[in-house]
């Protein structure tokens, strides 16, 4: 069976030892977020995830959602789990206290989300989408709408969705056809069809608040002509809630996350309210997307953690043959497969990227809090820049890594990984969607090179390159860090060169930037994680002989593995990037 224990020791290392998260409690609005609160919340979250969500993960996958007469039923146990989840206050963790939220830092909710995704990614979709919708309403809607919707969304009584995609358009939302016609009383009549709507219809909450992109009659063509609307499933009626004229047309049959309902939503002159300004829907949408993209990255991380823990347990238990260099466990009939170099290679590949990726996520989680709460506007701007820069990297790298890690985890199990009862193939199927939705990973790479890189004349890049450059200078003179920092320094210098190369080439020919984008994003991620691993080594080195020495020795060995066996992938990426767009673009379309 898949095994999972919340990695609380790991979280403490990240929060308290690596990133000094106690700093957030010095920022206005986060005074209550003390280290003790962090630990207490994580321990409680671990309990509900391990005890409530994890047990219904496999059964939820087997049963899936069902659709009948416009009604969607979640699998057995989901409603009860949701009620427990809601009553535990987990839906309101980072919501604003004004709307009944707990106002806890994002960096904390990141880790709670990771645990949810580790234990039941399908379940996590329902509160996850509500979070995105909550943020969009909080950022753009009028006070009246905020007062009406946010408290019940924070409490989890109502859930939320994002209705963007239509049958003929997903990436290019300028093409949407859903119409919004003003009624004259401040409401609009929304008509159109949306597809791939996660949590669009289900039986977990008493109301579902849809955020719908639509075009007003006077909308200019293209992406500058879309507006965002709040369209609830139930309206206030004289004698209680009244059903709005919208319905789920069907649900999709899909590869994974089967317990999450993916709906076709039909709006037939449904009543809605404008969220934000007319024609400025794209901006509002990006608020949802940015949160959502980071959330999807966390999904990749969460599923990968479970796959790693399960593979580790299996490799320790499964006895087969003997070590190549002679028997290691003579008391046992055979050695555990953990003794084999290739099995160890697989496990270290998983561990080094899961923990490295988590460090990246926690770093950015703390920066989100900084961007919202730091008293110095310059610090807020710098943090906001860094979050914007790294968001596509988190989305893309962590979900690619998540998918690869789940596949590797399945490999460790051999044939048992491929059959359903061990749960490893479910992780592979669940993880796969994260590379696709919320903007495919190719789109993320374009966002990085095409938008984030040139933005403000490269200012966003500064927020990463300057601190890393400064750290490399500092660490390079410490003898104990050299074996780690020198390869990172080399890769970093290469990243600088390649960044300049792409910026220059991309200016005269955008295809050059486009052809380099995916490799560049991966290169960037590997350098960032190499830098973070070196920092983790620096924290660990003084503690290797202490009570918890095994934990720190494990960190250092994992760092060494990453730096020597994973970071060199940058060489191949560099070669591919420097080859330019020609090998990608020269073939005639008809020759494909």
């Amino acid at each position, binding site marked *: 069976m898949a095994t999972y224990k919340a990695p609380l020791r790991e979280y403490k290392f990240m929060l308290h030892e690596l990133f000094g998260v106690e700093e957030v409690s010095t920022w206005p609005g986060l005074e209550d977020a003390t280290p003790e609160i962090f630990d207490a919340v994580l321990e409680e979250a671990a309990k509900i995830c391990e005890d409530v969500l994890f047990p219904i993960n496999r059964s939820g996958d087997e049963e899936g959602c069902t659709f009948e007469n416009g009604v969607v039923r979640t699998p057995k146990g989901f409603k009860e789990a949701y009620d427990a989840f809601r009553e535990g206050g987990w839906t309101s963790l980072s919501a604003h206290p004004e709307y009944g939220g707990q106002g806890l830092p994002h960096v904390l909710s990141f880790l709670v989300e990771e645990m949810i995704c580790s234990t039941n990614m399908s379940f996590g979709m329902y509160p996850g989408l509500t979070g995105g919708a909550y943020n969009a309403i909080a950022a753009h809607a009028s006070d009246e709408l905020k007062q009406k919707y946010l408290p019940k969304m924070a409490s989890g009584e109502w859930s939320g969705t994002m209705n963007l995609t239509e049958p003929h358009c997903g990436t290019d939302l300028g093409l949407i056809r859903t119409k919004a016609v003003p009624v004259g009383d401040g409401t609009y009549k929304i008509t159109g069809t949306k597809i791939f709507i996660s949590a669009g219809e289900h039986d977990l909450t008493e109301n579902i608040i849809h955020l719908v992109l639509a075009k007003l009659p006077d909308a200019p063509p293209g992406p500058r002509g879309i507006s965002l609307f709040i369209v609830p499933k139930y309206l206030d009626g004289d004698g209680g809630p009244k059903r709005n004229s919208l319905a789920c047309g069907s649900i999709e049959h899909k590869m994974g996350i089967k317990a999450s309902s993916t709906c076709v939503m039909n709006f037939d002159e449904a009543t809605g309210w404008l969220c934000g300004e007319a024609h400025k829907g794209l901006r509002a949408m990006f608020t949802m997307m940015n949160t959502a993209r980071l959330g999807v990255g966390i999904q990749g991380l969460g599923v990968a953690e479970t796959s790693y823990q399960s593979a580790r347990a299996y490799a320790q238990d499964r006895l087969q043959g003997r070590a190549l260099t002679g028997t290691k466990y003579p008391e046992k009939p055979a050695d555990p497969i953990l003794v084999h170099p290739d099995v160890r290679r697989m496990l270290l590949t998983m561990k080094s990227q899961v923990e490295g990726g988590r460090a990246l996520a926690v770093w950015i989680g703390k920066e989100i809090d900084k961007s919202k709460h730091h008293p110095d506007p*310059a610090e807020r701007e710098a943090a906001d820049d860094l979050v914007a820069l790294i968001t596509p990297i988190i989305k893309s790298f962590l979900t690619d890594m998540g998918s690869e890690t789940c596949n590797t985890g399945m490999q460790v199990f051999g044939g048992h990984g491929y059959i359903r009862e061990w749960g490893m193939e479910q992780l592979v199927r669940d993880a796969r969607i994260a590379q696709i939705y919320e903007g495919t990973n190719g789109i993320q790479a374009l966002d990085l090179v095409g938008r984030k890189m040139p933005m*403000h*004349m*490269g*200012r966003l*890049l*500064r927020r990463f*390159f*300057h601190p*890393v*450059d400064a750290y490399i200078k500092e660490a390079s003179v410490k003898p104990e860090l050299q074996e780690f920092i020198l390869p990172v320094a080399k890769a970093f210098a290469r990243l*600088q060169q390649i*960044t*300049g190369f792409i*910026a220059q080439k991309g200016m005269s020919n955008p295809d050059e930037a486009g052809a380099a984008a995916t490799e560049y994003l991966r290169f960037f991620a590997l350098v960032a994680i190499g830098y973070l691993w070196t920092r983790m080594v620096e924290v660990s080195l003084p503690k290797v002989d202490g009570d918890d020495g095994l934990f720190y020795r494990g960190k250092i060995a994992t760092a060494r593995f990453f730096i020597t066996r994973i970071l060199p992938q940058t060489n191949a990426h560099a070669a591919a990037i420097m080859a330019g767009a020609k090998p990608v673009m020269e073939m005639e379309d008809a020759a494909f």
Partner: protein
Amino acid sequence: MSIQKAAVLGAGVMGSGIAAHIANAGIPVVLLDIVPKGAADRNAIAEGAVQKLLKADPAAFMHPRNAKLVTTGNLEDHLELLKDCDLIIEAVLEDPQVKRDLYARVEAVRKDGSIVSSNTSTIPLQILTQGLPKRFAQDFLVTHFFNPPRYMRLLELVAGPETRPDAVTTVEAFGDEKLGKGIVHCKDTPGFIANRIGTFWIQASVNAAMDLGLSVEEADAVMGKPFGIPKTGVFGLIDLVGLDLMPHVSKSLQTTLPKDDPYQAIYRAPELFKRMIEEGYTGRKGKGGFYRINREAGKRKEAIDFKTGEYRPQQKVELESAGLKHPAEVLGHADRGGAFARAAIGATLAYAASLVPEICETVAELDAGMKLGYNWKFGPFELIDRIGVDNVIAALKAAGKEVPALLTLASGRSFYRVQDGKLEFLTIGGEYQPVVRPAGVLLLEDIKRATKPLAKNGSAALWDIGDGVACLEFTSKMNSIDPEIMAMIQKAIGIVGKGMKGLVVYNEGSNFSVGANLGLAIFAANIAMWPTIEESVAAGQATYKALKFAPFPVVAAPKNMALGGGCEVCLHSDAVQAHAELYIGLVEVGVGVIPGWGGCKELLLRAIANKRRPGGPMPPLAQVFETISTAKVSRSAEQAKELGILRPTDGITMNADRLLADAKAKVLALAEGYKVPEMQKVRLPGSTAEAGFNLAVADFHRQGKATKHDVVVSAALAHVLAGGDTDMVDEIDEDRLTELEREAFMTLVKTPGTLARIEHMLTTGKPLRN
């Protein structure tokens, strides 16, 4: 004969502006106007005009002291001041009788051989000389300046049948060499060249915009870039000159042009325009024009909506045709921008083609008139060539318009061609004739047509301009200094060093150089490529040093803006031959750095060498500190001397077309027995001076005159200018000074304040005060 003294009669905007510019040429000028009714001061008008000139923006005088060359007076008491004037320019009311009465009085006092001209823009010469004696008619011509006279390059000359030829050549030489104007000879027809075509073009454009439903912004956007017309377009231009002037100009053309002139048919005065004039919305000088900045709405940019006649926020132009580069593409486009261009530009080109030889002898003169008078990049015939003569003919036929005979004559050919490296134009006889430049004019444009470069890369080229002199030309975007320019300077030193006499650094772009390419720098800084940045600073220093110590004379010939790295090129040259319009300065602090390519060092050496400064070690330092720390930019070449950027011995050329020839002559003069300068050593006060500057800046900061980051940048500058850790006992050399510059530059470029300044400058074009 040459003009030693001049007079201007009439001290209105044009008259006083002309007088100021004559003073700019160093020539004494008398400025007279009428005696105001009941005034205590009988010279009040002329005197008031000089006071206004001193406050004018853009400045009328190249240096305030030039005002002393203007003698003011009135037309009743001081006519005898005209006795010793060689040229008397009349710029009074546009009324033939008033003018003729004045001429008769002038005629009584002026000396034999003196020349009288009128700045009339509307009255035919033949009417002005009516009833005046032969002596007057022989000495009389029209000199039509454009507003403002210092800055607008066109001078239209019209000679009458009786005007003596040497009077024309004298005025021509004066206008060209002394006043720096581009002379265009016109026939005695209404509006001469530029206003005749310009007025038609404005009217045709206004009509087309309104008929086809274009917004103000759309019309100006379509009209701008592809046609080489300044980005003010039509409505922006009307705002600039004043909507209230339009009815005057059009009325005079209506009354003087023949009834069958195409202008008569297109003339219209929209109700909206009348209302705007009545209510004072006459343009930039009024309450606003077609555009305005609404200060009540937080400096919001607004434009007039033709449909409502009210202001609304300025709109981004979405027309596809406005984004096209080639004029033929715009004219062929199906959207309303294309239709607008066909109607407005098409009609204007056809009109221009119908006016040769009616208003001037050659297409080259007509083109020159529009280029110099309206700042068009291409004259009408050059535009026709770009579109294709036959395309224009076909378009006219398709629109059912008459095809002018000159266009038919050019069918299958072009109005200009290059033959054996020489530019030729099509005459009205159907033959090609070379374009002849005035004697002594040397243009790189012509050299480039006739020869191949000695060397060339993406940002610069090296040309042989004859007599053993080479010319280094910048060709990068806005002539910003980049690594390729540095490479070309190094290459030029090698090539010229092998047997040539010297080098001129010169180009014919709109500005000499706007400074270093910051886009490269900020990106490298943002990704922390510090060694790359330091190498580029060091490479620039090494290159400029090599230029200074090259074994041959180097003369920089800057025009208009020479900022930052562009200024530093001039500072490292043996001599400068500057165009009178020179806006030069070390503006690096605006982007949070200090001059890093030897600019601090060179300005310091010039200040120390200046014998006229007060003694002691501090005064030269203080002067340089002030100049650099406040990013002073000269508003003329004369002022650049005062700032210590140009040497007293550096030359000034009034006419940009003569700049290269003058610079070349200077190289040849210096080449005789040229000695390479020696590396200089200086004694500087070190930390005491540095502390002094820092105290002063701290004080400015307290008073709110210096920002937080100004303090940081100034401190770095103070350290360099003080000589670092030195004192008056030690001698330090030029290399040590550039090393200090480099260190300071690298410190500053890593600060967030500096990076924010660079980013702001590149994204908004304005300095950030952080």
